[in-house]
């Protein structure tokens, strides 16, 4: 999604209030943005704690402040700066974490971001955005850019069948129709199963939904989804994130609080940071049973 990100930010760079800070990342990707923004493109160096606080200060001066790095470097390293300097003051700093989930695959556990939105959603005022398709990025950048609160944008890698055209970006989207169980997914991982879901008979085909904005407090499930859950009483949640604090636990709490009872709740999530061996994102997902075959078993 980096190409789409760069294009979308360049389109936004016409706004003289926009500033972009990177933690020394963006080689072979963000050079056009650097050219467009000139002095408003700031390479803050390998100093993420300072970068977040500087962005908070610039946001305080009414600048539209974007921050970019590999995901864990911009939410885990400077967590206290996000908490104290950005979230406590409800400053609309926009933090872009590249490589959400196991996006950095074989680069190893230091580069994996499987607890990012869970951790950040413990903070006040934060909004989380997780585009699912490359086609979402332009719209997401507009939504994040206009967001009046601190925002975390988890960027991944779009992965859909070549002949599939995703529906326009929305906080909630229904991707497939069917009489099967309800499946709710977040992020690009949904794209990996769309083709297989579409090929199923209607009677067993899951009703696949994608959510792209959290927390649920500000983006509750739509009525049609709730009605489907009441009818099927079966839900599978898919996310490339640990169980604690993720979409699955948020949804479970939401349904419990709203007295919506289920007979079946499957949660497919990222199991761990540490494995005996490492590999591509596809390989890493398989270690957590987030590969296509494992997911299909869970959505049936």
């Amino acid at each position, binding site marked *: 999604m980096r190409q789409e990100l760069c294009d979308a930010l360049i389109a936004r760079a016409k706004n003289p209030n926009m500033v972009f800070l990177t933690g020394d990342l963006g080689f072979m990707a963000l050079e056009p943005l650097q050219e467009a923004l000139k002095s408003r493109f700031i390479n803050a160096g390998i100093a993420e704690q300072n970068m977040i606080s500087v962005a908070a200060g610039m946001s*305080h001066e009414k600048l539209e402040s974007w921050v970019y790095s590999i995901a864990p470097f911009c939410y885990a390293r400077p967590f206290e700066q996000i908490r104290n300097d950005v979230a*406590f003051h409800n400053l609309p700093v926009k933090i872009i974490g590249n490589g959400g989930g196991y996006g950095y695959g074989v680069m190893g556990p230091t580069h994996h971001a499987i607890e990012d939105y869970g951790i950040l959603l413990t903070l006040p005022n934060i909004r989380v955005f997780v585009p699912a398709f490359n086609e979402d990025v332009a719209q997401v950048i507009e939504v994040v850019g206009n967001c009046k609160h601190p925002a975390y944008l988890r960027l991944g890698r779009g992965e859909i069948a070549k002949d599939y055209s995703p529906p326009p970006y929305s906080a909630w989207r229904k991707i497939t129709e069917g009489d099967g169980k309800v499946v709710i997914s977040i992020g690009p991982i949904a794209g990996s199963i769309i083709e297989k879901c579409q090929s199923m008979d209607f009677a067993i085909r899951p009703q696949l939904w994608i959510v792209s904005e959290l927390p649920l407090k500000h983006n509750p499930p739509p009525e049609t989804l709730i009605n489907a859950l009441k009818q099927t009483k079966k839900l599978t949640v898919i996310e490339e994130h640990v169980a604690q604090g993720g979409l699955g636990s948020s949804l479970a709490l939401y349904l419990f609080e709203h007295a919506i009872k289920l007979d079946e709740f499957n949660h497919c999530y990222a199991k761990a940071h540490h494995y005996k061996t490492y590999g591509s994102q596809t390989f890493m997902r398989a270690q957590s049973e987030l590969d296509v075959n494992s997911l299909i078993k869970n959505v049936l």
Partner: protein
Amino acid sequence: MQLSKNLILKSRKRLLQMHFESGVGHIGGNLSCLDSLLTIYHEFLNKNDRFVLSKGHSAGALYVTLWSLGFISEESLKTFHKDNTLLAGHPPASGIPQIHFATGSLGHGFSLACGLAMGLRVNQQQGRVFCITSDGEWQEGSTWEAFIFASHNKLNNLTVLIDHNRLQGFGSTHDVASMSPLGAKLQGFNIMITEVEGHNIEDLRSALNKKTDQCHLIIMNTTKGHGVSFMENEMKWHYLPMNEAQYKKAIEDIENL
């Protein structure tokens, strides 16, 4: 407006009074930076300028300074450290327009001040940014990140003052993690460094008036518990509240300073 001796005395006494009445500590570090706070606010800070107190545990000195300018009422000051107060032990996140950021965790303020200074520059606005850090705070890596950023970007609208009172939470800065001599350690970056006697108003005034095309760092040699004989250079006054006898003696010392 030039800071008067009478106002300094009145502010020191009010600082001691509020800490005594609320039964709280952090007095030593408040007394070491009160003079610089009063100087900055009364003689330099105008409506285009910004101030960040990075050593948030000296919030009392900041509150008293704002009180001395009428930004915080006497009534409000009486609530210091009490239930339902706006005046917490460290600067609050909102509610006082002159306080831009909640600080208290060390190593944040310098970076925030860099952001304000950079923001003023991008917006092509006039104005200076002032920030006071502690000396122990320079053990935080993020402070050095800010130092590098301010140096590299030649933030000439930023003045950072270090309250170099040489005492931190559990020992002297020299014994805990020495950077002595601090001035020499900070040399070599593209930052102008000035060393002053931090309780000498004329010294402070002169340093704050210096012009430079770089970020300006002022090392203020100060005394923890300045002006109170039994507190000066005593680490315990980082924490302890005063009893009545100590309070009376402290007021007496301040009046005779």
